[in-house]
C-alpha cells in the first residue's frame, strides 16, 4: 500500500505553499513556477489551497517563535507520506536572521525536511531541480 501511495505522490505531486513569515521573494519565485514560462502544471505539479489535499509542502521563510506552532500544525494535517521542501536560504540556516531574538533555528529541528533549496531567492529552475531530486529520492 505504501508503494501505491508513493506512486500517486510521484505521478502528480500536489503542493501546498506554507509562507512561514518570509519576505515574499521566495513566494514570488514560487508563483513564477506557475506562469507560462516555467509552467510546472504540465508535469502535474498543482498548487492546492489546503494541506489536507497536499503531497508536498513548499515552506518559505525563517522559522520564528510565532510561526513554529502553525508550521507544525500544517505538517500534522498533511497526509503522510509527504515531501517537505524548504525554499530559500532562510529555511536552510536562518540566513541573515540567525542572531535574532525571535528565530528558533532551521526547520529540521522540528519536522523532517526532504530537500533544502538555497538562494535568496532561488531561481525557479533551482526549485524545479530541488523538487525533482526530492522525487527521485523516493525511488
Amino acid at each position, binding site marked *: 500500500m505504501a508503494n501505491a501511495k508513493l506512486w500517486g505522490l510521484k505521478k502528480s505531486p500536489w503542493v501546498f505553499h506554507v509562507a512561514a513569515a518570509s519576505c515574499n521573494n521566495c513566494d514570488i519565485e514560487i508563483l513564477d513556477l506557475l506562469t507560462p514560462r516555467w509552467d510546472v502544471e504540465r508535469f502535474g505539479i498543482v498548487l492546492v489551497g489546503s494541506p489536507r489535499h497536499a503531497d508536498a509542502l513548499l515552506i518559505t521563510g525563517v522559522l520564528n517563535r*510565532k510561526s513554529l506552532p502553525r508550521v507544525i500544525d500544517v505538517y500534522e494535517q498533511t497526509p503522510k507520506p509527504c515531501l517537505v521542501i524548504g525554499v530559500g536560504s532562510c529555511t536552510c540556516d536562518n540566513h541573515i536572521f540567525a542572531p535574532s531574538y*525571535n528565530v528558533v533555528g532551521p526547520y529540521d529541528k522540528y519536522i523532517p525536511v526532504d530537500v533544502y533549496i538555497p538562494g535568496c531567492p532561488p531561481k525557479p529552475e533551482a526549485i524545479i531541480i530541488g523538487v525533482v531530486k526530492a522525487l527521485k529520492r523516493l525511488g
Partner: protein
Amino acid sequence: MKKEYSEEILQEIAEKFPEVEVKIHAPRRLYLRTPREEVYNLAEYMFKQKSFRFSIATGIDTREGIEIIYHFTYDESGTYYNIKTLIPKDDCQIKSLTTFLPAANWIEREMHELLGVDFIGHPNLIPLLMADDWPADLHPLRRDYANEHEKLKLKKKM
C-alpha cells in the same frame, strides 16, 4: 509655499514652551529636544492647534537613556518636526499620547514590549508583536539584553 521650516511656528513654540531646545538639522528637518514632562503638552499643541500630522514614533536605547522621537510632519511645507526626549533607564515611563492621538496606540505598545517603556494613561498596554509565551520583563531591543531567548522553552515541540 516655501519648502522649509517656518520661523513663526518655531517662535510660537519657543514662547509657549521655553524649555524646548530647537536644532535645525536640515531645511526640512528640525529636532525639538524636549524634557519628558513637556512632551505631552507640546505634542498636543502641535497636533491640535497647528494641525501637524503624526507620522510615527521611534525609540532607541542609547547610552544616556532611552530616547523616544515623535515624528510630526507639517504637510503644507513638507517639513519634519521631531520631538526628541530622553528617559532615564531607572525610571522608564512617559505620558501616553494615545488619549488625543489614537494613531500612537500600536507604536506605544510596540515600544513598551521591545524597549520596556511604560506609557502612563495608555488604554491597552499589552504585547503587540512577540509570541504569547514571551516573558513580559524581557525587552529584546535593550542594550543589556544578552540573548536570554536561548534559555526560553518553546511552547510546542514534536
